[in-house]
């Protein structure tokens, strides 16, 4: 019997597999950032051991950095200390750091791919659940906790039980105004925030194949939001074209040899999955979430479920969620006034996202009472946006283009949505308080967010596309 892509990669990275024990899996690339690594370095110090393979770990500062005035010292003392600890730890243990001010600095899941560090066939981990993003390249990539960060620093391996395999096929073609963000929000709304727990997902089908690398990253990024350990897409010409020539990508003979291997990375036709789900791209309209987990989403023209459409057991959590959002069961969201727009995060802060938004808003201006934050995923994205004049389009539209970081996706820094306000956000989580205490989040695609920025309310972007 054939093997799935996931099995091919996982099995070739097993160092030791003992009955009754989790597999010791070798890790090719380990990314770290300032928030989930300091306690791991402390652990190494306590044990008196070095980083085993320092060249296989790369560090950046992203979660807790300001997105204005990055050339100046960080004002907030605890944040400054945390970022300084990363600088100190990486220097002491010999790990390369792309810190504030470095031309490669940015959100860890944006810089790995854009620097050609992320490659097909790799095992990749990071102390961040959105590490699944790198799966877009046909890599086995997943988020880990700090104790596991310490394991990888100490041994370049991690102990894991092998997850089950799920295939999600999206067939057909996407409609106008529907982006890869809508595909993944749609899937999560269908299978729930825990629908893929215990599984590693492979995305396949025509609608996935036709996506750019950056759009594929958006899909894989949100695998964790349905509970999956990770998600991946078999590499193809789109993948190889994207990687070729990037800073750390293989070159010359190394490239040829790598390419030969990468072309073996697909699920065999007779490979078996533990679960297969199939969706039709034509059924997907622009999506929006209404609740406080990413599974609580719907087409933007739809109504929030009424209580009698729900299982009795689900009702208390559903009611709590809608109370937090100050929304009514059965209501529609179209026309709902919004206060903030956040376009950024490891889900949607890449150059294609910014181009798409710029194309849409060119010659338009934001609604009066709306604050619009655009936070590029990296210094490289920021530089590219300026080179293309995208910064000017945003300035004319009244959008604030800030500096790279995780920003209002998790509101660890000062980029917080004020209490009670509604933010339409291209990020990945709408949990209570995620964008600031008592802030209310609607997750959506960059186009749907941009449309809301212009109209000041939840809008079906397709109507504006027809008129333009």
């Amino acid at each position, binding site marked *: 019997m054939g093997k799935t892509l996931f099995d091919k990669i996982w099995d070739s990275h097993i*160092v*030791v597999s003992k009955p*009754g*024990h*989790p597999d*010791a899996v*070798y890790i090719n*690339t380990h990314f770290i950032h300032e*928030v*989930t690594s300091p*306690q791991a370095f*402390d652990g190494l110090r306590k*044990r008196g*051991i070095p980083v*085993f393979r320092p060249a296989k770990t790369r560090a950046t500062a992203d979660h*807790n950095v300001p997105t204005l005035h990055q050339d100046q010292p960080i004002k907030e003392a*605890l944040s400054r*200390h*945390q970022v300084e*600890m990363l600088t100190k730890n990486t220097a002491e243990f010999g790990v390369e750091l792309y810190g504030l001010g470095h031309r490669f600095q940015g959100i860890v899941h944006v810089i790995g791919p854009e620097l050609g560090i992320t*490659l097909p*066939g790799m095992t990749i981990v990071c*102390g*961040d*659940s959105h590490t699944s993003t790198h799966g877009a390249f046909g890599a086995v990539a997943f*988020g*880990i*906790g700090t*104790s596991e960060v*310490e*394991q990888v620093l100490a*041994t370049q*391996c991690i*102990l894991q039980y092998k997850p089950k395999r799920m295939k999600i096929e999206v067939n057909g073609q996407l409609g106008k105004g529907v982006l890869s963000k809508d595909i993944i929000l749609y899937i999560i709304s269908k299978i729930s*925030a*825990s629908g893929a*727990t*215990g599984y590693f997902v492979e995305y396949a089908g025509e609608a996935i194949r036709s996506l750019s690398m950056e759009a594929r990253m958006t899909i894989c990024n949100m695998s*964790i939001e349905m*509970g999956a*350990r990770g998600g991946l897409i078999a590499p193809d010409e789109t993948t190889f074209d994207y990687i070729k020539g990037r800073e750390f990508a*293989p070159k010359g003979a*190394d490239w040829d*040899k*790598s390419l030969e291997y990468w072309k073996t990375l697909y699920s065999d036709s007779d490979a078996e999955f533990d679960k297969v789900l199939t969706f039709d791209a034509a059924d997907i309209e622009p999506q929006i979430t209404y609740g406080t*987990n990413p*599974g609580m989403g719907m087409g933007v023209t739809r109504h929030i479920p009424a209580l009698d459409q729900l299982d009795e057991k689900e009702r*208390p*959590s559903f009611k*709590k969620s809608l109370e937090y959002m100050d929304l009514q069961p059965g209501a529609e969201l179209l026309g709902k006034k919004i206060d903030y727009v956040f376009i950024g995060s490891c889900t949607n802060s890449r150059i294609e996202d910014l181009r798409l938004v710029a194309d849409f808003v060119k010659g338009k201006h934001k609604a009066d009472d709306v604050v619009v934050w655009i936070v590029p995923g990296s210094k490289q994205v920021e530089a590219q946006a300026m080179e293309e004049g995208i910064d000017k389009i945003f300035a004319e539209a009244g959008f604030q283009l800030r500096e790279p970081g995780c920003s209002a996706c998790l*509101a*660890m820094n000062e980029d917080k949505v004020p*209490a009670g306000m509604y933010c339409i956000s291209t990020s990945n*989580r709408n*949990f*209570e*308080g*995620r964008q600031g*205490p*008592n802030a209310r989040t609607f997750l959506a695609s960059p186009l749907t967010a941009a449309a809301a920025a212009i109209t000041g309310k939840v809008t079906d972007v397709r109507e504006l596309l027809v008129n333009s």
Partner: protein
Amino acid sequence: MSKIFQHLVSSAVPVPIENIDTDQIIPARFLKATTREGFGENLFRDWRYNPDNTPKADFVMNNPVYSGQILVGGKNFGCGSSREHAAWAIADAGFKVVVSSFFADIFKNNALNTFILPVQVSEGFLDRIFKAIEADPKAQLEVDLENQFIKIVSTGEKEDFDINQYKKTCLLNGYDDIDYLLSLRKEIEQYETTRTYNF
């Protein structure tokens, strides 16, 4: 915190909400510490305190009737962010066991690595635990790792739970994963020599 877990009889703190994500367990703005200690005071921060830092009277942790070393949560406990700080906050607040009918993967690993025992029970048994605590906030639960069962002491209702044997051994003896991985150094170096690709 103790690295060993074997057996516990305790009352429990019930949070009967589904999909409790790690942002609720410990909001991101409290992740700025660079040590593992002290997160307990911000456990369930925004459910526990008002914006002016006064306690919210209706939250279970602010009701002195409820106490104990067992936290009981609804389905899909610990979803969302991979922050191990969530497990540290639970441990720092004095809990040794978390009971739910379903755990998110990363949280489960983080809990075990923090020497907190995640006990997954059936939805029916979870309901019975919530009902037992509703009837008597001091209702005792017994958790036995060696024999892998959880029991509602007053009624004698009991359910077995699963845990992988490796992790069970770690918890019973206070071993951690790094001790084991470090013992594999020769095998790891041997594996590296077999890799054909430059990554």
